[in-house]
């Protein structure tokens, strides 16, 4: 497990820089695509924020097992004694950390460019982001393990992940909308419950089926 942590850290440092610049570029692209009208952009802010999270997630999560594939550590993973689900949980934890760092950076950038004051809404926003990120990372880690063993993985990973995450995207954007205008979390309780349910289901399925994905 220590070996795994070191791997995670090494990959994270590599990917973090790239994803930071990617996030910055996304903000530019959003601005260019949607025009300088601040008012109009402000209305779409929750959507843009989660678009940013998901697009960064596609890049970051898709690379979950790339290091093992590239460095011939894959067989090591397959031969690891004990329940392979432990690998899933380890990778999931690493991915969660990675995603949360990226999302924090993106949030700061958004706040800067759109001149947002997030101090009051931060706790509520954090809850929404946390719930959504678990859902993203849980399925993303599982699918990354699958597509790592398939040709054209860069194409297949987003194609598989995005439809599955559609309800998560709906829920998080709606919840974020409410939270950003200062509404209490209670007003979006149904969305939060859906996200929590998604988290439980996805992690459970991930843990239960990871073995089947890693049979070699």
């Amino acid at each position, binding site marked *: 497990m220590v070996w795994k942590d070191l791997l995670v850290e090494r990959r994270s440092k590599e990917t973090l820089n790239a994803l930071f610049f990617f996030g910055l570029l996304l903000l530019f692209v959003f601005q260019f695509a949607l025009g300088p009208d601040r008012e109009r952009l402000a209305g779409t802010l929750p959507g843009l924020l989660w678009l940013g999270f998901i697009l960064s997630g596609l890049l970051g999560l898709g690379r979950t097992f790339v290091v093992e594939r590239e460095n011939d550590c894959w067989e090591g993973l397959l031969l690891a004694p004990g329940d392979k689900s432990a690998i899933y949980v380890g990778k999931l934890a690493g991915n969660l950390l990675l995603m949360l760092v990226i999302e924090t950076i993106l949030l700061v950038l958004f706040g800067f460019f759109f001149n947002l004051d997030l101090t009051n809404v931060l706790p509520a926003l954090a809850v929404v982001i946390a719930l959504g990120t678990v859902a993203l990372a849980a399925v993303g880690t599982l699918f990354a393990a699958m597509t790592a063993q398939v040709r054209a993985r860069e194409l297949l990973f987003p194609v598989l992940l995005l439809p599955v995450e559609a309800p998560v995207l709906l829920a998080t954007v709606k919840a974020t909308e409410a939270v950003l205008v200062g509404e209490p979390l209670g007003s979006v309780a149904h969305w939060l419950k859906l996200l929590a*349910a998604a988290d439980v289901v996805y992690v459970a399925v991930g843990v239960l089926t990871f073995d089947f994905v890693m049979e070699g």
Partner: protein
Amino acid sequence: MRSLLGGVTLAGLVAGLVMGFAIAPREATQGNVQRIMYLHVPSVWVAYLAFAVVLVASIVYLVRRAEAADRLAHASAEVGVLFTGLTIATGSIWGKPTWGTWWTWDARLTTVSILFVMYLGYLLLRGMIEDRERGARFAAVLGIVAAFNIPLVHFSVYWWRTLHQPPSLVKPGPGTMPGIIVTALLVNFAAFTLLYAYFVTRRARVLRLEAEAEA
């Protein structure tokens, strides 16, 4: 046995057509455009049935590694995607004269579109893996994830469409439909279910022949 199923299916489809066009009356508010529903609603039912079968077959495959279960999952997913596409198309064609637009993000069309893309991805995954055993395994995992996602899609889309109202709002039911329309619908439900069974059995047989040919 196959010809028997085929014959019964054909009879059922003819009966459905007769019910839909000749026996069911012109609907009061929508006019004859409503007859598209005899296609659209049974299609979506078959799609859900198909994906439920994919779930069960996927679990059975992972637990017992029965090739037949894998073939059933594959066939059912393919037929499911077929009927999902049909649902979207007929829904859109119904929508144009009714709502004035080819496309709208209403709850059903949105949900069905997400399902369509999910299971299309399933077929894509199968197509991209050469190793038969690995393809079966991965597809089974995806089949399970996709099926568990269906209720999440349902609720999220439904709440998304009812905007600012909390979900305690009563879901608009079919209301009181005249009995004859309900009967016509049921006949078409039965016919389409038979068609599903017919297609899946033939498709699974083709898959078995393909596997034997490769052996």
